[in-house]
């Protein structure tokens, strides 16, 4: 459950806290999304949107880590192996 997709903030409507909205683009389609739960976002940020409400912001650095996960694991394994070799 919890169908939520990432979209890019194109504009922010500077209304008060709970009514703060922004225009968000999902691959070109645009929808007005409530932004009150992501108070720190600015135009250009990517937010995770569920039923018309942004529930989180994409952490761009963390977003890329998965692509290196296996490689990093492999490097760690090699490091451990080479340490073990030295011991022997």
């Amino acid at each position, binding site marked *: 459950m919890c169908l939520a997709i990432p979209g890019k903030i194109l504009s922010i409507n500077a209304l008060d806290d709970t009514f703060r909205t922004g225009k968000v683009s999902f*691959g070109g389609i645009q929808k007005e999304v409530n932004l009150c739960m992501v108070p720190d976002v600015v135009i250009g940020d990517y937010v995770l949107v569920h039923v018309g409400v942004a529930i989180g912001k994409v952490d761009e650095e963390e977003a890329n880590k998965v692509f290196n996960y296996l490689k990093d694991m492999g490097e760690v394994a090699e490091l451990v192996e080479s340490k073990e070799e030295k011991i022997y």
Partner: protein
Amino acid sequence: MPQNSRVQLQCPMPKFDFDVITLGHGSGGLLTHRLLKSGVFDILKNDVLDQQHDGAVVEMHGKMAFSTDSYVISPIFFPGGNIGDLAVNGTVNDLTMCGAIPQYLSLAFIIEEGFEMKAFWEILVSIKNAATIAGVSIVTGDTKVVEKGKGDKIYINTSGVGLVHPKALIHHNNIEVGDQIIVSGNIASHGMAIMSLREGLEFETNIISDTVSLKSTVIKLIETFGSDIHFMRDPTRGGVASVLNEIAELTQLGFYLEHKSLPIDEQVDAACEMLGLDPLYVANEGLFLAVVKKEIAQPFLTALQNDPIGKNAAIIGEVTNDNKGKVIMKSSIGGKRMVTYLTGEQLPRIC
């Protein structure tokens, strides 16, 4: 409708004595006479209609295809067209899918009392446009008016006839193992164009309906490839998945698709993601599926891609001996799943 096929009719709306259609206009009496004489139907004038018989008298010699369809869509105006476009193109395309050259159409309206003349006029202009582009004549028709609440603004029925092209041999019985499945363009555009206006689900987009006449494109293909085109169908309600499931069940052959080959507009794809809809089940209008002999698949595709309505055409799969009677799809990451019949209307989800 694609821009390059839109005929710009210079058609100012005639002056009418009335702004809305009333029950009296359909009663068969004076008001009906006034509606007919108002000039609103003049836009559809042709020699056959002008005979003013109860029915159209035309001459046709040869094997004939005959099709009917009713159009009840809401909203009646949507990005890329209106119910009038659908009413003409829909029946033209059904005939074309039988391998016929659509020639004559009937046109019947059921109008809800209170429907605005301005809207009716716009629909008639679209009907005229679509018929002109498709090269068909509307030769007989009918108009009824129902009480408010007994209709949904306007319903249209069109029926059509056309002679079957001598080279066409289109029937699911002709489908063989090895045949290639081709789709003529981006899928799911029409359904998502409608969805973008739907109350409670609306979104801003450039998606437009793909409604268009397939007649000239398909006749050219039949001319070139003849009976090597084994089967064709336009995947309207229920989408590509429904057509493929129907023929899989009828032929008891296996239909294998590759997700990565499905052509889809970026915004249509995004809208489906947002609402949790599967584009394979979303309605299309000016799109067709063809199942063709393997040897001609590539030249067929190239010919289609060189046609204005076919530039996004693609080979999306093939007919196999495995999983008989089923439609199987290889996902974009390589795993396989079944594509079943849809149970009822596809609904947006939060889950």
